[in-house]
């Protein structure tokens, strides 16, 4: 009995070992011979935008692009684990800012390969270099930019007789006219705390980043802060003005982002601030999709030419331990083609940001084009903050301005406290 058990145990162990060897053999032959395969971990949105290029890439380079797509939050968790365990694919979607899978923290720990010598690197706009470069090296390829903009229901604007504003005073007048017509001027679903960023970030592009390009250096040095900075004070004062005048969704703390989109699509609300890559979800609720929706950059002052748009890049990086670095670089180069950058941007409701890219033939592309041409764009403020805690503090405090449970001074103090964690 005992010897039989041992024999069985031994046979099972041999079987398991043989299976493991077979599997290992298979995988190594596929990846070893896989010099032709470029693996990637990208978001679902990126995957949707890149899919039309897979066949062409294979035909022109001989490489096969084989991505794994994932929802963005799940991707962040997966990527961290894969980097730690040395199993990350060749191409990875890196985040901006100070997150653990942020491009600069990853580069600092040696997880990314240098892309400085790539032909497209010289086409990265100067204002974005600080986000994806350190020690004089470029660490990521910017696929496109996502912008925060004000989207509006064209039918409601036409019905009430208002047009997209170009100054802050115009914007307030439009809001009042809409309110008088029984419409909610701006849909806000602060039950989704991240929505509280959109209006302040749009205002901050003009009032903070454009006026003080070195504010991040000053904040790091401790010579200024959210509370001391006149720009940030003006941002929140203007945001609170919209709340106090009843220009945003009533009881917005009980409404989600999805609910705010529905308000806009139903015509109950006229405008909604969104990140451009979220706009397809809004378009989907309209009969004629994007054709029913207008878009404009939110002005922050009474001079139209002082308006800046917050645009931040989406990034792809090359794993330092990539099995196929040549194939990954070929993929970046293939994507960097001016026509493809525009096609990708159109498919993902984003904006091509490499200089020399073709224009995007959408209303979004047309609205953003002059701002790009005039260099009137800045990264989202949070992408330059020293930690993720500051953004979390934003989510926990800014929405409460709507219910009057917190003051602007307390919001700014909370942001400073979080920022000071470093």
């Amino acid at each position: 009995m005992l010897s039989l058990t041992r024999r069985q145990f031994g046979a099972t162990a041999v079987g398991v070992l043989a299976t493991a060897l077979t599997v290992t053999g298979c995988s190594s032959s596929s990846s070893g011979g896989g010099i032709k395969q470029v693996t990637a971990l990208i978001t679902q949105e990126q995957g949707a935008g890149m899919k039309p290029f897979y066949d062409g890439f294979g035909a022109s380079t001989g490489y096969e692009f084989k991505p794994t797509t994932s929802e963005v939050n799940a991707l962040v968790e997966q990527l961290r684990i894969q980097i730690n365990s040395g199993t990350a694919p060749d191409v990875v979607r890196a985040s901006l800012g100070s997150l653990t899978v942020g491009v600069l923290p990853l580069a600092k720990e040696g997880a990314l390969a240098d892309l400085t010598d790539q032909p497209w690197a010289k086409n990265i706009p100067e204002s974005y270099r600080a986000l994806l470069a350190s020690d004089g090296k470029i660490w990521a390829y910017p696929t496109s930019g996502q912008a925060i903009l004000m989207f509006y229901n064209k039918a409601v604007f036409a019905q009430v007789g208002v047009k997209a504003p170009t100054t802050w005073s115009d914007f307030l007048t439009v809001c009042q006219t809409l309110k008088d017509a029984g419409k909610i001027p701006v849909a806000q679903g602060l039950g989704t705390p991240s929505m509280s960023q959109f209006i302040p970030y749009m205002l901050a592009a003009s009032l903070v980043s454009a006026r003080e390009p070195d504010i991040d250096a000053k904040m790091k040095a401790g010579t200024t802060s959210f509370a001391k900075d006149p720009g940030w004070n003006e941002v929140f004062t203007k945001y609170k003005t919209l709340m106090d005048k009843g220009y945003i969704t009533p009881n917005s703390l009980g409404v989600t982002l999805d609910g705010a989109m529905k308000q806009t699509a139903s015509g109950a609300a006229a405008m909604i601030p969104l990140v451009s890559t979220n706009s397809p979800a809004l378009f989907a609720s309209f009969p004629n999709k994007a054709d029913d929706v207008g878009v404009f950059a939110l002005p922050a002052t009474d001079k139209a030419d002082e308006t800046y748009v917050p645009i931040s890049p989406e990034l792809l990086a090359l794993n330092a331990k990539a099995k196929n670095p040549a194939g990954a670089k070929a993929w970046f180069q293939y994507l960097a083609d001016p026509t493809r950058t525009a096609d990708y941007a159109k498919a993902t409701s984003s904006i091509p940001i490499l200089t020399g890219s073709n224009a995007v033939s959408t209303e979004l592309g047309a609205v953003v084009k002059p701002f790009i041409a005039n260099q009137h764009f800045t990264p989202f403020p949070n992408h330059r903050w020293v930690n993720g805690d500051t953004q979390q503090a934003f989510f926990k405090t800014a929405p409460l301005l709507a219910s009057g449970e917190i003051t602007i001074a307390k919001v700014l103090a909370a942001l400073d406290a979080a920022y000071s964690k470093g």
Partner: protein
Amino acid sequence: MTTTAAPAMRAGKNPKKGKHPTRRNLLWFALPALALYGTVLIYPTFAGAALAFTNSKGGRRADFVGLANFQTLLADQDAIRSVGNTILVTASLVIVQTALALMLAIGLHQKLKLRGALRTIFFLPFILPSLIVGVLWQFLYNPGGPIDSVLTSLGLGSLIQLWLGSTSVAIWSVIVALIWQNTGFSIVVYLAALEEVPAELYEASAIDGANARQNFWHITRPMLGPATTINITLTMVGALKIFDQIFVMTNGGPGVATQVLSLVTYQQSFVLGNYGYGSAIALVLTMIIAAAAFIQTWARRRAGAN
């Protein structure tokens, strides 16, 4: 004789040995399960606990920082608030859910026409995925949503609240949703215990002239003691770990009004990448759960001994 006796003796011993393998031999059968258990549970648990004493940001390097993460926790107002919320949710669920389940179980134990259907209806929410429950209640609590409509139609419009958007109301709205989801399980535990109460006890008490209240207090309540222990322990442990429903309904907001320890652990570890600090919070939560379960078991044993 000897040549035949020895094999006979061996024949007499060996089959017995074969039929009753030693404990050591049996361990071989448990080895795969033990290896799996050790790999996916024991090792990660201790590795996670060890992480609590480091400054790990998720990267490859982490330095030992002693108790620094626990000191940070003591000074973290959001985390302190989340401890309070966790205790409030747990206490509410343990008290209200257990009491409600007991009353409903006694009701459903009676010979009702629709007893089977009612039991199914009450148990149904428990088998719904937590994320679905979160989405469902988020919909019900929408301003102008079904709950507001019902209150308005009943002439109780003045009771309408910003159910998930008010810092003072949101935590109670979440608690109601949790009780709705989990009471069915507690009912089932009580129903199983009620089936075990001998009918003779009630017959004897009836002869003695006991009323319903006396029946409950002197027969039903003591006989349901073990079921109450099970319900309280499972509810308590489940409430301390609650995550999914709150994540979906409020994500801890507005502000930090519905933030609980498990949510802070998630945010610190997977949103902010503070794996060391997140693990420290998780370790504290584990200790609280272990202490709560231990106290409950000890109290029950003591009550049983008395």
